[in-house]
């Protein structure tokens, strides 16, 4: 049995040529003689334990040194609180996922946002600011929603990449306007000082991606250029 297109001899029973995918029509079709079983291996992803341990030790040592120095010099935490909580934030972002065999971005991104929100709350309370509820919290929540939504869409929706990325860039442009709006509410700054520029930049690229998603030839060309 030969492929009519490539001219190569094919295995008994195959339904299409493995090279050019031309269907095979054979009235005396026999059962396919398979050279490999169907069993797929289990995924063996591993946690980066040495990296996690190293980062844990570094963060712990740096925190202890900071605490000791502050207590020796001032008898209280003073600036040490910023450093220690900053290290904790770094730990949550950089070290925590390494303990897991298959860290899920859609879980760790919200966790990181919660950590950032708590750290910013500490700064707000320490400095006696009144900008947490009106500025920092809504900005962090918006950032969390946009980034988690994009990660979930990229991970679980097959295809439609230009639409997802285009939508993300448009949302990012909208996010910058939102940041400026909350800035205006909290600190009384004038609106539209800078956010319109970023909205124009993100928006135009986002719109381009949405259009590219609708035109197959342009999408193909972009896939070829930006393949990684």
């Amino acid at each position: 049995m030969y492929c009519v297109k490539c001219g190569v001899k094919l295995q008994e029973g195959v339904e299409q040529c493995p090279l050019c995918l031309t269907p095979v029509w054979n009235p005396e079709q026999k059962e396919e003689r398979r050279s490999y079983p169907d069993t797929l291996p289990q995924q063996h992803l591993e946690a980066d334990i040495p990296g996690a341990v190293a980062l844990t030790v570094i963060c712990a040592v740096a925190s202890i040194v900071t605490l000791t120095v502050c207590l020796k010099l001032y008898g209280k935490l003073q600036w040490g609180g910023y450093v220690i909580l900053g290290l904790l934030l770094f730990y949550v972002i950089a070290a925590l996922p390494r303990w897991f065999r298959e860290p899920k971005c859609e879980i760790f991104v919200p966790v990181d946002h919660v950590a950032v929100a708590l750290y910013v709350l500490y700064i707000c309370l320490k400095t006696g600011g009144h900008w947490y509820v009106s500025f920092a919290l809504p900005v962090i929540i918006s950032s969390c929603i946009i980034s988690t939504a994009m990660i979930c869409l990229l991970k679980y929706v097959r295809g439609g990449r230009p639409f997802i990325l285009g939508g993300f860039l448009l949302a990012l442009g909208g996010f910058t306007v939102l940041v400026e709006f909350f800035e205006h509410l909290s600190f009384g700054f004038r609106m539209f000082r800078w956010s319109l520029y970023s909205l124009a930049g993100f928006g135009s690229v986002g719109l381009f991606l949405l259009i590219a998603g609708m035109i197959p030839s342009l999408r193909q060309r972009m896939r070829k250029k930006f393949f990684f």
Partner: protein
Amino acid sequence: MQKYWYRLDTAALIFPATRRRNWANAFRVSACLKEDVDTEILQQAVDGLRHRFPSYYVTLRRGLFWYYLEESSEQVRVRRDYAYPLTFMSSRELKHNCMRILVYKNRIAAEFFHSLTDGRGGSIYLCNLIARYLELKEGITIPCEGLIRDLSETPSPEELEDSFLKNAAEVASGRKEEPSYRLHGTREDRGFKTLTTGIVETRALLDAAHRYGVTVTALLAGVMAESIIAMQNAEKPRRRQRPVKITIPVDLRRLYGSETLRNFSLVLNIGVDPRYGDYTLEELCKNIYHQLCASATRQNMAGMIAANVQPQKLIPLRLTPVSIKNAVMDAVYRRSGESGGSLNISNITALPLPEVMLQYISRMEFIIGPQRSYPNNCSVLSFGGYTYINMIRNIRQSELERRFFSRLVELGIAVEIESNRR
């Protein structure tokens, strides 16, 4: 009891450093028998070879300054094969064993992490494993000729040596190479690797090679280069193209008379630059053949060996912790290790086996996995009058295989195709 251990040989050093969470450099040699394999007898044969081939029954360990191989206290278990060859060898697995023995129906396959040995060493092990299996199963005596070793002996020091150290030149040759054209495509899910085997008559392949006055390796590399050039032509204009180079491993045992069972091969990047004009297939084959002849000399290879050996001798580098070495070696590998070639063609030609074994074996194959940065690879082995050309890929597109095998058909070589394509 104290476990034996080995330093990694010069070529092996790079492989632990360049591993990734989903990629490790490994290869497979396999043989199909005329009857289904008895796994219990095969397990006995695997266990029986431990004392003769101790350098393969090892685990990968990490020292402060270097990785090393240590005797494995665990049995290498015979396992059932998977839907595709060369499934990922994880760090966890390498801490138990760096070699796998897999069985499917009448096929016995041995897969090796590349730090243990190269294709030649792996095929010597497989041939001895089959010989031992046949002795146990069929009750025959197989003479120690060709690749078959005397299992009652212990390995000689020459078999366990790092032959690179003995054969390095005083001056190292340069590593710099212009980056070559990179094949690409849509990655398969879950690391699936599609294997397409082209079975051709060795005589037909030799005749075609002789028509052009070149070797089989040069002919296959020429056809492959022509296919890749055509793919690049379809993708970008000539002035923006890159050289098309085929990476061809050279077995150094023949050049230097080494007996080592560990790694002793180096790769040459041979090819042409399509920006300078079109090539006919004959021009490509001859060009590659002459480049190969001019490069694969004792003196040239000694210079290349020196380029790998000399950095190892620098005391500050030796005293650098392994994690930092890993990062440096990884960067070197990215810059000069894989960038110089578009694809590998690894040909271990025919394996000399005793006559008595041949009646029990129907075919033998050699498969190398895709590289870290390029998705296609090709490996070749001849057995029983047929040559098995294995093309493996971790992308969905079969364009390269289609062009390559169709071109062989156009040259008058009948090709039979097998695949594990889903």
